[in-house]
């Protein structure tokens, strides 16, 4: 049996009367890229801090690589590379000096550290800026330097808190590439983000966090089918046919949603475009347009949080 990298059971963290995290369960397996999604204040950063042993939990059970972050924080912190939300560096030191400092804190030998630092700076393409003071770095460069630090640490687990927050589209794409490299090195990655397209493009599994609890968890397809009913929306435009009768009783169709006189959306559990086209032509209609529209994670996210808000 493979041991999970991160195992959180019934985690509760209370600040005064407020439950920042209220009974959260989470399991991340080795090599997985796991995305935490949720609005601000839903407890994502708190949970990450608990995993690093930087804050004490009120109750619950947390294991990282089989270690307890509260009792063995040094061993846990040695095994996790952490990129905090909008990371900062010492302005008076150069990028390389900043990394050297943390490398010394990690307990690396000078020669080994220098080798890894040069390597990491190369990979995040900061070699040319390496000996410039970090005070003049743009937000994007600082984020990349943060990734370089995770690379220098060379650990099995990387935790990235809002890595693309406040980045311009080009920097976001660059950072995305770097995160993919981290994944391809075989690291387990836990990342929290609002950037749904980012989560969708690289996460194997996603958890929607709501008020300190996991609302939903699974891969993007599972979330899609859970929240949106069917995971597929098929747009059919046809003339000379009554679309409602044509599609009634069709297997795998959850719902027929009429958009216009000649346009319907079929909410289905599978790709049924071929079957839909056959029904239209067999019914004597002219098929004008047939398109499959897969709801993005953004749609899922918006719909889910609208639902829980309505339920509350």
């Amino acid at each position, binding site marked *: 049996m493979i041991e999970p990298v991160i195992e959180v059971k019934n985690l509760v963290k209370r*600040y005064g009367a407020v439950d920042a995290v209220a009974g959260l369960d989470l399991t991340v397996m080795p090599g997985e890229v796991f995305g935490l999604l949720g609005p601000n204040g839903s407890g994502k950063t*708190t949970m990450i801090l608990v995993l690093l042993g930087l804050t004490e939990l009120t109750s619950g059970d947390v294991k990282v690589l089989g270690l307890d972050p509260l009792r*063995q*924080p*040094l061993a846990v*912190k040695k095994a996790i590379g952490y990129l905090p939300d909008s990371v900062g560096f010492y302005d008076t030191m150069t990028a390389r000096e900043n990394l050297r400092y943390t490398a010394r804190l*990690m307990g690396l030998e000078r020669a080994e550290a220098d080798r890894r630092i040069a390597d990491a700076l190369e990979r995040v393409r900061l070699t040319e800026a390496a000996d410039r003071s970090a005070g003049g770095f743009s937000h994007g460069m600082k984020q990349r330097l943060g990734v370089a630090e995770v690379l220098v640490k060379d650990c099995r687990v990387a935790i990235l808190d809002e890595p693309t927050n406040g980045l311009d589209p080009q920097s976001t794409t660059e950072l995305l590439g770097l995160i993919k490299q981290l994944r391809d090195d075989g690291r387990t990655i836990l990342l929290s983000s609002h950037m749904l397209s980012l989560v969708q493009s690289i996460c194997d599994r996603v958890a929607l966090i709501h008020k300190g609890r996991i609302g939903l968890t699974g891969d993007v397809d599972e979330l899609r089918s859970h929240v949106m009913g069917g995971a597929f929306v098929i747009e059919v435009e046809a003339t000379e046919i009554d679309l409602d009768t044509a599609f009634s009783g069709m297997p795998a169709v959850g719902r027929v949603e009429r958009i216009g006189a000649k346009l319907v959306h079929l909410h289905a559990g599978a790709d049924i475009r071929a079957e839909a086209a056959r029904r239209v032509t067999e019914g004597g209609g002219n098929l004008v347009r047939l398109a499959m529209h897969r709801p993005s994670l953004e749609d899922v996210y918006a719909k889910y949080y609208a639902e829980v808000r309505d339920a509350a």
Partner: protein
Amino acid sequence: MRREGSPWRGLTTVAFKEAADHMSSARMHFVMLLVVLTAVGATYAAIGDIKSTIGSDPFLFLRLFTTARDPLPSFAGFLGFLLPLVAIALGFDGINGEYQRRTMSRILSQPIYRDALLAGKFLGGMIVLAICIVTLWLLVTGLGILMLGVPPSGEEIARGIAFLIVSLAYCTIWLALALWFSSVFRSPATAALAALTLWLVFAVFWQMIAPLVAGALIPVDPLNPMTAVAQIDLQHNISRLSPSVLYGEMLTGILHPSTRSFGLLFRSQMEGALMGAPLPFSQSLLLVWPDFSGLVAGTVLVFTFGYISFQRQEVRA
């Protein structure tokens, strides 16, 4: 609950990084420039005075530190006033500055305990302060050798080293205080102002407050002369709550070898004493020992407050 691993892991790394940071920071250069200029000025004035007045003093070098010529105070007086400023300049943004630069969670996610970060900052500041004080002392001694033309005696050097240790202890309590404030107040400006306020209170106003408080607590009864003694004792003890007063007393004890007591002396206690004769070095040390242990105890206490405040803090900014 026991935690695994040493709390001192990373201590020297943090300390040396902090010391290097301070040595190259503009803030430190400014403060040191101020201190060096005033120190040199005071010593220069003192040398002029010593040359003209004292010819046969056995402790000529100690006079360099304590002789004041109007309008300048003595070198020792300057240090009592300015050393806290140096220490505050080193410590006031120690903790909150890390939050402001958003480096705190990044540093604490490395395999070290918070203890190492705080103690490292404290130690780093102490290293820089020690370098400053030794530099100043050497500067003044060198100036004395050049201008007076005589080398310091063995006992003068021993007293000089005692002066260095006492000065470092005095700086350290202000450093601990500045670090404590930097952990309590989230804004470095507030922390700096709070520390400077306390510095002004202790360096300037405390000597005025102490007699008022003592007078209110123990009014002098004209029919009972012992109440006057009790009032002066109380006033003395209240004023000793200020590190500046403790430092001043210690400097008097160390740099004026003829000092026998800091408080009241009765005629009966002086019987058989040679007025103005210097005490041996060991006796002077004995005289300042209570003040010194009080100052160190205060440092430990203030550092503990800072430690508790920092340990209980939530790391998220």
